[in-house]
């Protein structure tokens, strides 16, 4: 049993940084990303630690994507509620538009992070964040995590054909967005 826990510890240590970066690209928020990674780790250990180790990677990213999806749903519900609340409180409020934009803008990195990362990283993360979600998932899982098409399909909960389509479109979209800004 201890060996199993050690193996799980090593596995989580090998994926935690990338998982955080994936979650941060998806949410644009460091704290949300940390919460999502924590939940994904807990879920994997609780429900799947006895599965064969070769399945852990795909399972972990499946859980991670699921948590990211839950986060997006919560944000959508929150936005709708805030929109309704702002309309109800004072439809004539001249600052309402600004408030809405502020609540919608969940995609900015804080100034300290921007300075540390530099222009290249900022440009890259902005481009990845702007991708349609399925393309973003397929690209990061295939390119960065090194999952093959089958594993990516399992992580995304879709067919291998869909993975290939999303991946191909992601590359095309990134090339257009990055173009001259990419070294």
């Amino acid at each position, binding site marked *: 049993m201890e060996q199993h826990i050690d193996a799980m510890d090593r596995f*989580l240590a090998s994926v935690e940084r990338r998982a955080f970066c994936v979650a941060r690209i998806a949410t644009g928020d460091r704290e949300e990303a940390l919460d999502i990674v924590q939940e994904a780790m807990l879920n994997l250990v609780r429900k799947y630690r006895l599965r064969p180790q070769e399945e852990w990677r795909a399972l972990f990213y499946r859980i991670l994507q699921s948590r990211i999806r839950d986060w997006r749903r919560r944000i959508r519900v929150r936005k709708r509620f805030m929109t309704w609340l702002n309309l109800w409180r004072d439809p004539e409020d001249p600052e309402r538009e600004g408030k809405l934009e502020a609540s919608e803008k969940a995609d900015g990195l804080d100034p300290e992070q921007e300075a540390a990362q530099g222009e290249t990283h900022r440009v890259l993360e902005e481009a990845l964040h702007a991708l349609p979600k399925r393309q973003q998932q397929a690209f990061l899982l295939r390119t960065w995590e090194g999952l093959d098409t089958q594993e990516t399909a399992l992580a995304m909960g879709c067919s291998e054909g869909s993975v290939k389509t999303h991946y191909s479109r992601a590359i095309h979209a990134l090339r257009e967005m990055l173009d001259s800004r990419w070294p």
Partner: protein
Amino acid sequence: MAVDVQEKEERFVKGIRAALERNAQALDRDTIRRLKQARRNALVEGTLMTPRPWRWMGIPAAGLAGLAVAVVALLMHFDRPPAFQATHQIEALEILTSRDDLDLYGDMEFYVWLSEDEGHAG
């Protein structure tokens, strides 16, 4: 020509991968610390909170406790040493020969029911 396009695409993807990896390695100390903490928490909490089998069977905890008491009582009944049995018989005799109103003992069931009923109402 097609090879060129493919090579260009591979170089492009490789460049992005390298940039993402550099980004991941350059995380600030606080984030790294919190990720380690998250990992430790997951390993501790994830292995502690294993569901108990009786939950899957749909048996509530109170029912299980009651069943356990009944089983223990039954075992004690059958395992009672002779001395205990004799004491029990003497107690019964004392009740029967006491000057107390035996009606009280007949009403015992009623009082037990009443106390249970008050407990539910409360």
